[in-house]
Every structure is written in structure tokens, then in C-alpha cells.
């Protein structure tokens, strides 16, 4: 998930909540209107295109998909599908659609709509970022290559049945059908919008977009015909954009705003935490996020594993979490603690300046060396880069900080031999769905170590790649635990080669007004940030 978590390091999508706040026990109420603020304007609400953490949750609520998650959890459940079957070879998935489910334009949803929607997401003409998710569907290459305009692997034998034929087993396929790109859209509305579907979305989700004043606000109203009873809880929510997180918080304290969508900036965190109403306002949840420092294995002297290990020992992660006002914990492996497959017993590299120096000397750099550290230029990332810079200086490594616009950092990372070190803050990997595989391919696998890729360490280990493919072929639900363990081992084995310094696992801190009810998990939902379907107003 990508693109606009620029301003706030703490904003991330997939999250899980650790402690259950006291308000979790309230019984959900029906009705009420609330106000939510964001800094950035909403780019688009087209499910085939939208791919940033702000519109992600809105698209989730505007549209429905075959599969979805139980609010606040990572548990997959059928949604628009009534039931599904997976063939024993893992290559055929058949879904029965829910009867009577309708688009908000009044038309009943049929199987052909599902086929059309996914083909639309894959079609190069759509210019969507999500095509790659559907790579396992038969005929994918023909469609992206421009040879056909349809996916041969999706069939609609009757109005309520959809069958997917895969070209290879994909243990994450049900998750794929729950990502936004698999949202079902009505063809006639897409065509009527004439290229402006992102501003005039029509779906079958819990909410309907009623009004959109560009650059100011969006109004969403409850969809009275939604196919699940008592969903959503609130009648209406208004999203106000262009609001500085700090200003949004001040307004929230005054009662003008119900949810400050960008979270609490570090500057205000301590003040609010220590204020009397703090406990009621703050929702502090762990998320599936790892902040890391990439060490470019194709740039000297980081081609030497000893140097990479030395850097791993040189970074004082405790101090960085202190700069983040304790809203993060130190990381020691790529996977975040709440991700299935995380190895609790793994300790990684401990902070040890002397040992780091010794390793550097062993690698032939007793006096250190000079290098460059890239970072994005939005607060607090340049500050963290400077903290890392100071730690590196302590072992003799003189790193010049380059704090650039996000796009420039991404370009440098994807150019071979360009960026020796990148602090990932503001661009850190956040899972598209809660599965460890999603943390590997593009950022640590060989497929990402290409021009324009996201594997900024340029780390490519064919052996691990083969193990990853093997793990992802275990699509039999009975083998889930075995698959998880296999994945966990891949990530801890990576650390022997130390292509990254896993630095922090940041928690997400959201602010909500005291009148908002519901467990913390639905404000920091692991699959959609704020779960607009489940939140409710207390009185």
C-alpha cells in the first residue's frame, strides 16, 4: 500500500490493536453523523486506481468484494460471496454470489460484474496499480500484454456463480479477492462517468458518496439497502480535507471533529497523553509496519556482509523510539510482531558499538568510510536520519544525509548503484493484506531487485526465493501453520545476510472524540485503517 503516507510516519494501514480500551464494552448504537479530517485531498475513489491509505478505507466502504474481513481482525469471511469452494489442487475457486445484493443504482449484482471488475483492474488501459495482484489468474499475461481484453481464467457460468482458474497455486488468493482492486463495479456507471468514475463512484458497499466538494469535503451516507443487516452503524460521515493534523487535533479537543484521520503528531502526543481526557481520546494500536534502513548490497562497502552486520549493531534503536516519543518499539527482523510468522525467539543484532567497530576493522575499514543516507523530507524522517547519522559516526562511518522528496528517494532506490543507504520512514512497507508473503517479493526478493524496483538493498538470494515460492504453493488451509513457519524462517534467515537494519515497529495513534464508541481495533483496523462500517456514536 503506497503513495501518500508521506506527511506522517505513523500513518499506516494494516494494524492490530494490543490492549483493549475500556470503551470496548459499549453496545453498538445505530445512527449519528460524524466529522473526520485528513490533510491530503482524496485523490480518487475508483477502486481500480485508489491506492493510498486515506482513500483505501473509503473505497472499502463504498464497494463490496467477494471476500472481506471481520471488522477489527484479520479473519477472512465471504462478503458478496455467499459461499466458496477451493479445488484440491488449489487451482480452481468457485464462488456463489449472495442473492439480492444490489448496486446503489438499483441493479442486482451478477457474476458478469465480478468478471468485468477484475478485468478492468488488470486492463492496462485503466492505468491501475493493482494489476499485479491478479497475476495467478489464467490469461493474466495475455491481458496485460495487450493480446486480449478479457481474462480467460474468470468464468461466469450463471448469474450467481463465478469460477476462477489459476495458472499456479496461490495461497494468498482469497486475500487478493479482498483487496480494493477486486471491488465489484457496475459497468454502466463506469461508462456513464466517462473516465471520471473516481469522482462519481457507484458501488454496493455500506456507504454512498452523496457529495464531493473538491479540496474541501466529501459526504458519505448510509446505504439503506446494504446486504448485511445493521451495517453500517452511523448514518453519515463527512470527510474534511486540507486540515493540518495539529489543527485537526485542536478542533477535536473543541468537539468540532470526531476523528483526526492523520493521527496524533509527535508534538502533541505527550501533551494529549498526559492530559485528563487523554485516555478517552487516544487509540494507540500496533500495526503491521516495520521501519528499516536498507543497505545496498551492490554498493561498496555494503557488498561486504560484515559491514552490513556492523551497521546493524551500530544503530541505537532505543534512542530512535525515544525521539518518536515512545510510539514505536525496536525491531529486530523484517516482519512486525503481529504478523503471522513473526519469530518471538529471534533476537537479531544487539546494539554494540565495540563489536561493530571490530567487525568494520575485520572488513578492512578500521577508520570507517564515507557514504550517503537517503531519507524523505517530511518530518520526522530527516530527524531520524540524523539520529542514524550520529550513531554511524560513532563507529567511524561518515554518512551524508540527503533528505529529498519521496519521489526522488524512490527513484534513487530503484536505480542500480545509486543509493547506498535509505531510511524507509514515510515509505516503509505496510502489508496490503495480513500475510507474511506480502512482506517479501517486492522488497526483499529477486523480483524487486531490478531497475525501478522496491528492493532497495538490491538483495537477491535465489535459495530464499525458491523457498518463498514453495511456501506460497501451500494453498491447502490445513497446511496454514506449516506455511507460516516456513515464511517466518525465511525472514530470520535473511537477517544473516543483513540487507536491512530493521529499526522500529511503529504503532498507530489515532485521536477520536469521547462520543465515539467501539473497540480500538475498528479505529486502527488491520485491513482498512478506520472501519467506517463498524464505528458508532455512543449517545
Amino acid at each position, binding site marked *: 500500500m503506497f503513495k501518500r503516507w508521506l506527511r506522517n510516519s505513523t500513518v499506516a494501514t494494516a494494524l492490530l490493536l494490543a490492549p483493549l480500551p475500556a470503551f470496548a464494552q459499549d453496545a453498538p448504537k445505530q445512527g449519528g453523523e460524524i466529522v473526520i479530517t485528513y490533510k491530503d485531498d482524496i485523490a480518487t475513489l475508483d477502486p481500480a486506481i485508489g491506492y493510498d491509505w486515506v482513500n483505501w478505507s473509503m473505497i472499502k466502504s463504498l464497494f463490496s468484494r467477494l471476500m472481506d474481513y471481520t471488522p477489527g481482525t484479520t479473519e477472512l469471511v465471504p462478503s458478496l460471496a455467499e459461499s466458496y469452494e477451493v479445488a484440491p489442487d488449489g487451482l480452481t475457486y468457485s464462488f456463489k454470489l449472495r442473492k439480492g445484493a444490489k448496486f446503489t443504482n438499483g441493479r442486482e449484482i451478477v457474476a458478469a460484474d465480478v468478471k468485468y471488475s477484475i478485468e478492468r483492474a488488470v486492463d492496462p488501459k485503466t492505468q491501475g496499480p493493482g494489476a499485479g495482484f491478479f497475476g495467478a489468474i489464467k490469461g493474466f499475461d495475455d491481458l496485460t500484454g495487450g493480446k486480449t481484453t478479457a481474462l480467460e481464467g474468470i468464468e461466469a457460468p450463471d448469474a450467481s456463480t463465478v469460477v476462477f482458474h489459476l495458472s499456479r497455486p496461490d495461497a494468498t488468493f482469497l486475500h487478493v479477492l479482498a483487496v480494493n482492486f477486486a471491488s465489484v463495479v457496475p459497468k454502466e456507471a463506469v461508462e456513464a462517468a466517462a473516465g471520471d468514475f473516481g469522482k462519481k463512484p457507484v458501488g454496493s458497499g455500506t456507504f454512498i458518496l452523496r457529495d464531493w466538494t473538491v479540496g474541501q469535503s466529501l459526504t458519505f451516507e448510509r446505504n439503506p439497502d446494504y446486504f448485511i443487516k445493521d451495517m453500517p452503524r452511523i448514518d453519515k460521515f463527512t470527510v474534511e480535507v486540507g486540515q493540518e*493534523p*495539529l489543527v485537526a487535533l485542536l478542533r477535536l479537543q473543541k468537539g468540532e471533529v470526531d476523528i483526526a484521520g492523520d493521527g496524533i*503528531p*509527535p*508534538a*502533541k502526543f*505527550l*501533551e494529549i497523553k498526559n492530559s485528563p481526557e487523554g485516555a478517552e481520546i487516544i487509540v494507540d494500536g500496533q500495526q503491521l509496519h516495520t521501519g528499516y534502513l536498507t543497505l545496498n548490497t551492490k554498493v561498496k562497502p555494503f557488498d561486504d556482509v560484515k559491514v552490513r552486520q556492523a551497521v546493524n549493531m551500530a544503530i541505537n534503536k532505543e*534512542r530512535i523510539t*525515544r*525521539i*518518536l*516519543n*515512545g510510539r514505536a518499539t525496536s525491531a529486530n527482523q523484517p516482519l512486525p510482531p503481529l504478523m503471522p510468522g513473526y519469530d518471538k525467539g529471534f533476537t537479531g543484532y544487539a546494539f554494540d558499538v565495540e563489536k561493530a567497530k571490530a567487525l568494520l576493522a575485520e572488513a578492512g575499514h578500521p577508520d570507517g568510510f564515507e557514504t550517503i543516507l537517503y531519507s524523505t*523530507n*517530511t*518530518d*520526522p524522517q*530527516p*530527524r531520524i*536520519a*540524523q*539520529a542514524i*547519522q*550520529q550513531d554511524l559516526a560513532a563507529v567511524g562511518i561518515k554518512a*551524508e*544525509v*540527503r*533528505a*529529498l*522528496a519521496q519521489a*526522488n528517494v524512490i527513484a534513487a532506490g530503484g536505480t542500480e548503484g545509486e543509493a547506498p543507504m535509505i531510511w524507509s520512514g514515510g515509505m516503509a512497507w505496510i502489508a496490503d493484506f495480513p500475510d507474511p508473503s506480502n512482506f517479501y517479493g517486492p522488497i526483499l526478493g529477486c523480483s524487486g531487485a531490478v531497475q525501478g524496483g522496491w528492493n532497495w538493498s538490491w538483495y537477491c538470494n535465489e535459495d530464499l526465493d525458491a523457498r518463498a515460492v514453495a511456501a506460497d504453493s501451500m494453498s491447502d488451509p490445513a497446511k496454514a501453520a506449516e506455511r507460516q513457519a516456513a515464511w517466518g524462517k525465511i525472514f530470520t534467515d535473511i537477517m544473516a545476510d543483513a540487507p536491512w537494519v530493521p529499526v522500529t515497529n511503529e504503532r498507530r495513534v489515532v485521536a477520536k472524540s469521547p462520543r465515539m464508541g467501539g473497540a480500538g481495533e475498528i479505529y486502527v483496523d488491520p485491513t482498512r485503517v478506520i472501519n467506517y462500517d463498524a464505528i458508532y456514536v455512543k449517545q
Partner: protein
Amino acid sequence: MRAVKAMVRQPAALFGLIVVALVVFLAVAAPLIAPYSPDEQMFDGLTLEGAPLPPSAQFLLGTDTLGRDLFSRLLYGARTSLVIGLVANGIAVAIGLLIGILSGYMRGIVGGALMRFTDLMMAFPALLLAIVLAALLRPSLWIVAMVIALVNWVQVARIVYTETRGLVERDFILAERSLGAGHGRILFHHILPHLVPTAIVWGTLGIATTVLLEATLSFLGIGVQPPTPSWGNIIFESQSYFQAAPWLVFIPGAVILLTALSFNLVGDALRDILDPTQRGRG
């Protein structure tokens, strides 16, 4: 010397002169005065929760969000801001003079083309241009100075152009010309000396503008690279703390204001002294 004497007699100009001198002194003597290294992130410079410390006996102006001494950073920041002010503005005035004189003196295609180019640059929204340039070139102290110069020369060019046009029509130049003086002689012996006051005035006033623009670029995150302190990036790194730690924003803000103000006062006084006909003009 005459100018300095005249300035001492005006309280506002005197004030400006003293502040400018003080800022220059502090910048030059920063290593001697600064109690800490400007880049040292001190363990006891933050609370245990990671909040910056307010002004105290140990940290005169408090600490920033990385636990560095704000006073030391401001001192070293003065170096950055002054260097950028002098270099960027020096280049801007030089480009402005060159293009202004050439377009004012030369008739025909070259002069016209130069003036059209100046018009073109005037039409650019300055900050947008600076942002795009800063994104294009990797920001470092010198690049930031270049970017500011590339944005700021236009105004100087316009003024020099107008003045040169005025001079060219004047009798003594026409006389020189009729006597067969070469272009070089006219330009260097007659026109350029008359433009010196303008150059000095703009060289001073422009520093204020430049310091402000550098601060604005840094405020947007595209200024001088960390950890080199500049007044602008000190504020940038702390802007969200303006309520929790107001000293981090408003002390550097006041320093920028005071410095820009002083350069403006000195520049204005210089204009009055060097060119009485311009007296009082904005």
C-alpha cells in the same frame, strides 16, 4: 565612510547596522561562543519521553527535538543563512546587473530578447520555480544559494534596465558617443559607475529577501540539508511543536525577523544616502 557617518545619525539605520554587525560577529565567532557542538544530539537534551527541553541555565535557549542545543544551532545557523544571503544575493545582483545593463544599452534583437526573457522569468511564480528547481538539483548549501539567485535576479534586472535606459538618453552619454567612444568605454566608465549605488542598495535589501526565501524553502523541507543548521530548517524540524515547545519556532522566527529587518533598514538608509532622488520610495 560618508555613508556610514550619515547612517550613524539615523537611529533606525544605526540600530540596523548594529544588529547586522552583531549577527556577522556571532556567525564568525560561533565556534568560540557556542557552548555545544551544533550537531551533537545529547542524551540529557531530551526528556525521558523524548520531548525537547525549555530554556534553562544548562541550555540557554532550550533544546530541539533531537536534544541539540538551540543556541549553538542558531549561532551556526547564522553562518548558513548569511553565506546564502551573501552568495545568493551576490549572484542575483550580478546577473541582474549584467542582463539589465545589456538589455538597457543594446538596442535591437539582443536587448529586446534579454528583456523578453526577463519578462518571462517575472511571470514565473517564484516559489513554485524554486520548489521545482530544488527538487531537480540535489539541495546543498550552494545549490540552495543558486536556486535563490536564479529566482531573485529578475527584480534587479528590471530596475537596472530602467536606470540604464535613462542614462543612455542623458546628454553626457550622447556626447561621449558622438565623440566616438567605444561601447566598452561607455559601459564601464560612464554607465556602470552610476549603477553602483543601485547595486549596493539591492545588495543589502536583497539579503533580507534571500534570508526569508531560504527560510521558506527550508520550511517546505527543500532547503539546506541536515544536519547543517540554517534558521529555516531549525523551524522546519520543529514546526509541529509550535504549541508544545514554542521556543523552537518563535525564537528562530524572531532571529530571522530581526536580521531581515536590520538588512532592510540599512539598505533603505543606504538608498537615501546614495541616491537622494529615490528618497522614501518603496
